[in-house]
């Protein structure tokens, strides 16, 4: 545990102290954790020197579990309890999961999100993902022999609100302070752009284990501006494996019906696929219950079996370029990310489409985690002079259901976040006192074709004639890409508000309950944890307030300054004790005491930005 440093007012506590912030790439097939150490971002290895953690969790019984390579090794022996590719289930109902019947493990339909039936009981995808995240968190803590200040977690750019919320919930469950969710292609662009001092418009083609993203970014003077993003959150290397497996079964006229056979066949197909990236021809040999498979597969056969998948990615590329309002020729470079871009046919197709060789001078497995680590380092305040700024967009339009099952779009896709947009609605019956809102995400016109995110009701509207009420519905999308919806009747001021969680995410109570019956963190005493977290937060707040005072003390009257100093002293005193609730209360008091100071500093910053620009243009 980090000791909180106490210092006299005016004296900077731990002036060169760095806060350890990590970037985590939570992938479909494997996950990584990276951090900036001595100014250099690097992936952190496990105790055997491996940076990759297979995203596989095996439940052995109610208590024990294996995570990573150990679980992967048992996949064919214990397919029902070995959960791979759980990312494809995040924020999804059973009906959304493609090929559910062919998965080696059993899915259970449940309100909100599908669950996996294991020997340890039914597990949500959030819990399984949290096991992976917690393993990476422990790895980082061991590497630094210190607590982690916070983490940036990457998600596919094309993830919708439910998938993002599920990812954030998993991180919270794993005991991580989420500094930000950032999009995988954006993280890759960050690592690539900073490394190569790149300027101009770039396309990032990111084909991972289970997801495909295409993002078009403009890079200039440290600003990474996403112009448009597109993709398919259920298309990746897994699908290439499956297509190859199907082809193999057809060729050899053998069936794979048992979960063991299915798991073994998928593993063999994957191995064969990887071998074909290096060689023209590769063997696929395997003993199944129904018979033996003994084939040699060449590249042409593999490419033919998977051509339709590669074509789907290029369709998304075409649509995204159109959204960005750009022609192919205006793209300065194409960066390939994700292990699946090692497949020669993918490289060739992308090169042929853009008419230029893609850039491959980054490690496609590590680049996302590295980019996340750079952003985490900056967000933690370790790089105060940092010039880097990410301006990302929302990937899918957001709207509400209107009469007749149609979607009224409120936030169109590819809007820069954070953003807030409002639309006015009215009542359609005399004396109507409630309005039900159904929030959806997607590009289709019919509600049935979009993802349902949440339903809520604005009640207590005073009875009025039909059409007289003016109900303003405001959609706010924060910098994590997460949605909050508020409705307010303008005349009476009646309000309703929700974080978009209930229908696909987990409620706060559910998360609290899961933390109670904790898994990887079972050995940790919850009360001690709460205290550590409260102290870290307090530490963070005191440091931030001190640096604000150093920069802009002249904005304060003597009395205001004394109030803030008193609140700092009170917080430091309570942080020295061991009452987490008291530390939280003192933190809140300090935040309150600095509220108007923060507002004045913001105004000064804005004014400075403008005057700087005016001087530059004079």
């Amino acid at each position, binding site marked *: 545990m980090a000791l909180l440093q106490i210092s006299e007012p005016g004296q900077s506590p731990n002036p060169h102290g760095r*806060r350890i912030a990590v970037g985590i790439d939570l992938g479909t097939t494997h996950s990584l954790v990276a951090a900036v150490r001595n100014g250099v971002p690097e992936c952190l290895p496990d105790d055997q020197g491996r940076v990759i953690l297979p995203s596989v969790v095996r439940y052995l019984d109610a208590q024990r579990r294996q995570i990573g390579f150990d679980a992967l090794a048992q996949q064919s022996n214990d397919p029902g309890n070995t959960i791979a590719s759980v990312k494809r289930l995040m924020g999804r109902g059973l009906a959304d999961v493609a090929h559910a019947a062919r998965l080696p493990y059993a899915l259970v339909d449940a309100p909100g999100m599908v669950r996996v039936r294991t020997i340890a009981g039914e597990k949500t995808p959030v819990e399984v993902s949290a096991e992976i995240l917690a393993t990476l968190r422990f790895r980082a803590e061991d590497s630094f022999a210190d607590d982690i200040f*916070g983490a940036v977690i990457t998600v596919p750019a094309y993830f919708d609100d439910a998938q993002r919320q599920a990812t954030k919930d998993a991180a919270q469950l794993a005991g991580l302070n989420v*500094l*930000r969710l950032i999009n995988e292609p954006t993280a890759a662009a960050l690592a690539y752009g900073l490394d190569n001092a790149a300027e101009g418009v770039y396309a990032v083609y990111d084909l991972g284990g289970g997801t495909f993203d295409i993002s078009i970014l403009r890079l200039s003077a440290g*600003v990474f*501006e996403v112009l448009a993003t597109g993709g398919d959150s259920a298309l990746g290397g897994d699908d290439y494996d499956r297509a190859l497996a199907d082809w193999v079964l057809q060729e050899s006229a053998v069936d794979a019906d048992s979960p063991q056979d299915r798991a073994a066949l998928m593993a063999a197909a994957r191995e064969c696929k990887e071998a074909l990236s290096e060689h023209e021809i590769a063997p696929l040999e395997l003993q199944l219950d129904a018979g033996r498979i003994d084939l040699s597969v060449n590249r042409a056969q593999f490419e033919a079996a998977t051509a339709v998948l590669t074509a789907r990615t290029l*369709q998304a590329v*075409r*649509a995204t370029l*159109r959204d960005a309002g750009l022609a192919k020729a205006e793209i300065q470079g194409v960066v390939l990310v994700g292990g699946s871009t090692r497949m020669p046919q993918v490289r060739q197709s992308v090169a042929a489409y853009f008419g230029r060789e893609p850039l491959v001078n980054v490690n496609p497995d590590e680049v996302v985690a590295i980019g996340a680590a750079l*952003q985490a380092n*900056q*967000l*933690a*305040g370790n790089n105060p002079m940092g010039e880097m*700024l*990410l*301006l990302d967009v929302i990937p899918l339009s957001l709207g509400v259901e209107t009469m007749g099952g149609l979607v009224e779009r409120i936030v169109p896709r590819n*809007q*820069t*976040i*954070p*953003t*807030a947009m409002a639309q006015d609605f009215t009542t359609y019956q005399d004396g109507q006192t409630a309005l039900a809102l159904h929030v959806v995400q997607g590009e289709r016109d019919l509600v049935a074709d979009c993802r349902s995110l949440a339903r809520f009701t604005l009640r207590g509207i005073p009875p009025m004639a039909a059409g007289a009420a003016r109900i303003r519905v405001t959609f*706010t999308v*924060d*910098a994590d890409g997460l949605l909050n919806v508020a409705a307010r009747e303008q005349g009476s001021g009646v309000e309703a508000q929700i974080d978009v969680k209930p229908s696909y995410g987990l409620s706060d109570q559910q998360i609290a309950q899961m933390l109670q019956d904790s898994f990887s963190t079972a050995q940790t005493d919850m009360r001690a944890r709460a205290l550590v977290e409260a102290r870290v937060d307090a530490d*963070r*707040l005191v*440091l*931030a*307030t001190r640096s*604000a005072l150093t920069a802009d003390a002249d904005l304060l009257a003597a009395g205001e300054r004394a109030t803030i100093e008193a609140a700092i002293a009170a917080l430091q005193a309570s942080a020295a004790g061991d009452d987490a609730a008291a530390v939280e209360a003192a*933190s809140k008091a*300090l*935040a*309150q005491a*600095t*509220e108007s100071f*923060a*507002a004045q500093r*913001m*105004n000064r*910053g*804005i*004014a*400075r*930005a*403008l005057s*700087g*620009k*005016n001087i530059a*243009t004079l």
Partner: protein
Amino acid sequence: MNLQSDDFDLFGLSRSYAQDRAAVDTAWKALQRQAHPDKFAAEGAAAQRLAMQWSVRINEAYQRLKDPIRRAAYLCELAGFPIAAHHNTAMPAAFLVRQMEWHEALDAADSADAIDALALEVRAQLTEMLAECAQLLDVAHDYPGAVQAVRALMFVDKFGQDVMARQHALDA
């Protein structure tokens, strides 16, 4: 400078239709550098909330300033002539006939080339109408005339989006 300042004030730009897109972009990025929530990720919830408000406001202004039609509509509104597109849809007959012809052409278009050709035609029409709008706003200061021009632009722009949706549908 505060959250209630108008878009032009906020971005330090003159209140006119003619704008240099590069200058708008530069001001946007300079402002986001100061206000983006990422700059306050290590600070308390109050600072983050405030940064979020500012950042949202800056993005809102940017969306309006960079889009010529929305910028024109906003200038009319600031001058006291709101567009009120939902309440007033009266348009000259010749214009409406032209719109109907376009919609028929889009329904009949069965190839990517035919749709692309229609997209080009729409773009040319938009360019012409925007030039007229610039004249009305920046030179003649004829706001009622500009309101009418913006309404017509909104029709054409909506049709342009329908054309783009068809292009997307063909991609998929």
